[in-house]
């Protein structure tokens, strides 16, 4: 891990918005900016970003994956840190970029150095900025879904919990099996929708079992998957990205929830 600087003041952070947040839920990126700035760093959002390349990479389209990976390296290498509100995209940058570009003399070192300074949002706040609590309130019980990439690729487990327990009025109830996948898996959920939904239903039973009114996670992919099936079943559980709660930006409706009229 990159050594923690004495003071985060002046750290220049490039926000990797992620394609899903950009398209579906911009409030997550605004929440991320607020949190990183609260931790004392300066945030910039480069305009030339699109996607981390995972859809191509995981479909076996190595050529297009590499083209996108190079683009991300070029766009983000000038920052002190790169932060994504997603374990999946951060895992892609941290673990898979160096391997994809290992044989490219122009890019191998650059990808490795980008990887070392790329972080999932909550892990960056806690492990790099040393943020121990946030200034936010949220009334009620929530449960937290660890995305597989956060948990197993990046070993991020404590950071979101640590910050969540500092939110005023919030109580965190753990899932029975917090290591279980929700069944999203990107294109997997479209190629094998029945299997994906069956895996998700086990997760939804686990969520319901906690009695929490809100489910949070650090990955919008999992959240769209979870919220979409809850909406289909007309379940009232609220679904949000963890950053929204940590930044105190929960005025708008949850994911897939109807807009309040008026």
């Amino acid at each position: 891990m990159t050594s923690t600087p004495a003071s985060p003041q002046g750290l220049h952070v490039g926000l990797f918005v992620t394609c899903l947040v950009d398209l579906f839920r911009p409030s997550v990126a605004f929440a991320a900016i607020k949190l990183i700035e609260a931790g004392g760093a300066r945030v910039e959002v480069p305009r030339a970003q699109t996607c981390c390349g995972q859809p191509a990479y995981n479909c076996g389209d190595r050529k297009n994956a590499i083209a996108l990976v190079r683009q991300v390296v070029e766009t983000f290498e000038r920052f002190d840190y790169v932060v994504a509100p997603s374990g999946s995209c951060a895992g892609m940058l941290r673990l898979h970029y160096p391997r994809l570009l290992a044989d490219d003399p122009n890019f191998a070192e650059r990808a490795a150095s980008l990887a070392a300074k790329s972080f999932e949002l909550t892990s960056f706040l806690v492990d790099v900025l040393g943020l121990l609590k946030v200034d936010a309130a949220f009334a009620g019980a929530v449960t937290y879904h660890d995305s597989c990439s956060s948990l197993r690729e990046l070993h991020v487990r404590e950071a979101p919990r640590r910050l969540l327990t500092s939110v005023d009025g919030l109580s965190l109830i753990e899932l029975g099996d917090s290591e279980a996948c929700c069944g999203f898996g990107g294109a997997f959920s479209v190629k094998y929708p029945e299997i994906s939904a069956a895996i998700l239903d086990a997760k939804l039973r686990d969520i319901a079992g906690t009695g929490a009114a809100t489910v949070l996670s650090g990955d919008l992919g999992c959240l769209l998957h979870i919220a979409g099936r809850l909406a289909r079943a007309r379940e009232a559980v609220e679904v949000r990205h963890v950053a929204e709660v940590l930044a105190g930006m929960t005025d708008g409706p949850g994911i897939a929830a109807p807009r309040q009229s008026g």
Partner: protein
Amino acid sequence: MADSREDFKAAAVHALADAALQKALLNVKRGFVVKREAAKAKLPEFDALREEARDVKDHTLAHLDLYLEAYERKVNESGGQVHYAPGAVDARAIVLRLCQQAGAKLVTKGKSMVSEEIGLNAELQASGIEVVETDLGEYIVQLRGERPSHIVAPVIHLNKESIERDFRRTHQRLPRQRRLDQAEHLVAEARQILREKFLAADVGITGANFLIAETGSSVIVTNEGNGDLTATLPRTHIVVASIEKVVPTLEDASTLLRLLARSATGQEITTYTTFTTGPRRNGDPDGPVAYHVVLLDNGRSEMLGNEFADMLRCIRCGACLNHCPVYGAIGGHAYGSVYPGPMGAVLTPQLQGIDRARDLPNASSFCGRCEAVCPMDIPLPDMMRAWRERDFARGNPAFNERLALRLWAFAARRPRLYHALSRAVARFLARRAGARGSLSRFPFLKAWTGTHDLPAPQGRTFHALYARARRGKSR
């Protein structure tokens, strides 16, 4: 079996709707996941052992030719004989010839996934030889004419009521009024029937968990003791094993054994761990007169040199199956392969060809739990992705899937275009959803909206909102 995407999908959907199967699959979690975790927690050096085991196997595989030669020498010295089988056809032919030379009418078999891989039973039966599986689970799947649905627990897909029905249907000689409603009744009945077979068998065939180069021994682990009776009572013992089972020393085997039982069933050690070395020696009270080892390659030496070499470290513990959400949802049979779950998703395309098995490495959410629990530290998701890359390079995925990827990648490499498209899509979807928050139908995303709603975007993209906020600030 599942030769194409439609077959796999149909089998999966069928499995998802099978209430008895779904109930049985819950036992995987209760029976294996929880017990493995407890066994691992009691062994503080588990992770160190895992590294040591990985190194043992990597070293062995790097010098596999030498260790196989050393193993063969030791088998010969102990009075046994080694036969090399390049493929499944060769292996079947060798075993059949050995059985015929032994004048075999009845063959007993210990549990062996390699014999399933080569389709051995059908070959022997076609030549008029009676083959009896003696592992209880394998015995039951044999009665049912099925293949095992799990590499460690062949009948994990069944409940005891269906096994009772199978026993009543096939054990017609036994009294009708007998009780068979408890597991111990079933075990006792199987034992009674198998006991006669053990004593009458002419040839016993076992697999091997490990082959030890230092001594020429083969090792099997069982919980029923059936392997011992299969190996020692008949006049001829044939070991059928694949070439990557060899390890250098007894010490290495013991390292791997410590991981195997814990990872497989959560046991510290299985009830029986049996070492067999050659035929009966002078003065031995029992044991076979003839001892043969059939070593199967079947694509493995090709794997030594390709991106799937790490798969050869696999010790068939089944932990990756037990922790796989896909296996947990659909069970083993839907894979249409001898080897299901994550290890099967990597191994099967090598055995059957990627064209026939392309769904297996594709049907994974890449959750990574298989790799996390693998005692041999095998990067299973990476290797599934490597199969997807091979598949893609061959032009295999469906035309519209490739087209969608190509269009998406074209846009993603052009940020301005991409942002313009994102803005249009976000606005369009948000407008269609109106105040509802999600879309229950959408023409291009039927695969998604068949099972869930599509959450509606908030309306404008982040980049659009951010640019506007920046302009506001600078004014």
